[in-house]
């Protein structure tokens, strides 16, 4: 290496020397990061062309952030699944989430193309005792909501069953959003169990209870996933079309499109 003129002052050199020993990542943070990364597909350095995959997951990551920013603690699309994977009990014998794409695989379909990327913390005790516990954000949101929820006042993408009594729409407040989140959380955890029946039931309940709720986009994103897992691909595609129409800026769309495209 070309030598550089001048010596660093001893005081500065000592600071730099000290800084060479890295600080450890706090265990809880490390566990969360590893859990989030564990749901990503395996990639091949220098051979594959995962750029689009990366963009997709980058989008999904931003989706996760956006959702977190508005204090929802629950994301639609794969963002929700990444969050879910972070919170899943690590000691579960066969994680419901193997890869992002596998989540959209119908229950009876063959194994996924992607190898499961296991979390390094798989043997550690569960972060949460029950997957039904609501998602807990680790810290206060900082970034603005980027206007994503402006569209939340739109009509629900999937109308509730005719027999369901529609409650009067109230402006979503903190309490009602929490109530919405609770129902969607049930749907989300049902999806993690690969139980589309329970998931769809919870989603229909949300549609009946909150016809103009704040989390419609998230609900419909979950509905698409539930329909896909149930093997109802055509209905999932129809729901995807409605989501595209009503929430064209939804960051869950790229992942959902890609996931559905892989289901025969």
């Amino acid at each position, binding site marked *: 290496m070309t030598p550089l003129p*001048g010596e660093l002052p001893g005081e500065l050199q000592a600071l730099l020397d000290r800084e060479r020993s*890295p600080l450890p990542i706090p265990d809880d943070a490390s566990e969360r990061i590893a859990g989030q990364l564990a749901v990503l597909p395996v990639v091949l350095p220098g051979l594959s062309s995962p750029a689009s995959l990366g963009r997709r997951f980058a989008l999904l990551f931003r989706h996760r952030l956006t959702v977190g920013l508005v204090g929802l603690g629950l994301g639609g699309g794969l963002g929700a699944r990444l969050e879910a994977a972070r919170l899943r009990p690590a000691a579960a014998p066969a994680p419901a989430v193997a890869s992002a794409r596998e989540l959209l695989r119908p229950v009876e379909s063959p194994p996924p193309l992607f190898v499961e990327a296991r979390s390094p913390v798989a043997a550690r005790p569960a972060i949460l005792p029950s997957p039904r516990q609501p998602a807990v954000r680790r810290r206060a949101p900082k970034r603005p909501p980027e206007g994503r929820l402006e569209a939340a006042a739109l009509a629900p993408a999937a109308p509730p069953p005719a027999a369901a009594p529609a409650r009067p729409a109230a402006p979503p407040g903190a309490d009602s959003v929490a109530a919405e989140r609770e129902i969607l959380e049930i749907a989300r955890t049902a999806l993690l169990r690969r139980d589309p029946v329970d998931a769809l039931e919870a989603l229909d309940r949300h549609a009946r209870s909150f016809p103009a709720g704040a989390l419609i986009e998230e609900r419909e994103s979950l509905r698409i996933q539930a329909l896909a897992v149930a093997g109802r691909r055509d209905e999932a595609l129809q729901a995807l079309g409605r989501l595209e129409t009503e929430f064209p800026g939804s960051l869950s769309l790229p992942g959902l499109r890609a996931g559905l495209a892989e289901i025969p």
Partner: protein
Amino acid sequence: MAPRATTSRNVAPPGKALTPDALYRAEGEYVWNSLRRLGVAAADLEDLTHEVFIVALGRLSSYDPARPLRPWLFGIAARVAGHHQRWWRRRREVGGELPELEDGGRPADEELADRQARALLVRALGQLKLERRSVLILHEIDGVAVPQIAEALGIPLNTAYSRLRLGRAELAVAVRRLARGER
């Protein structure tokens, strides 16, 4: 100073599958610390570390396994940190506050001196332009040779040397100023 040899772990040879968590296990701590040294606030380290790996995995096809991994990861971390800091700067312009640099979750008794020293360095680094800060961290802390830095950051070799030279001088001034209690 004589830089230490750059650690280049063979996380995944060409053609061999790389799991995202394997990459994180090998280099998570490095990325976390790089972001911290680049001035990312403790509260944002987790999210940005995750983001660096997401971006890295997306760009893995552009990574040459024959090259050291860490400078490549650092280049991504610097870009992610740069976006983040620009965002915070805009926030500050409209009335927001920059978050405190350096982490604060460790016990203050026996590690106080270590923590203060690290905080001083990170604050001093924070007074440098990100471009110079990046070169300085890579060379003086990570021990990466300047030609490798130039390659990893995509800058001409002379520019890398220039940034290092200016960065060293500025850092020395910044440390002295901070040590005297000035901002």
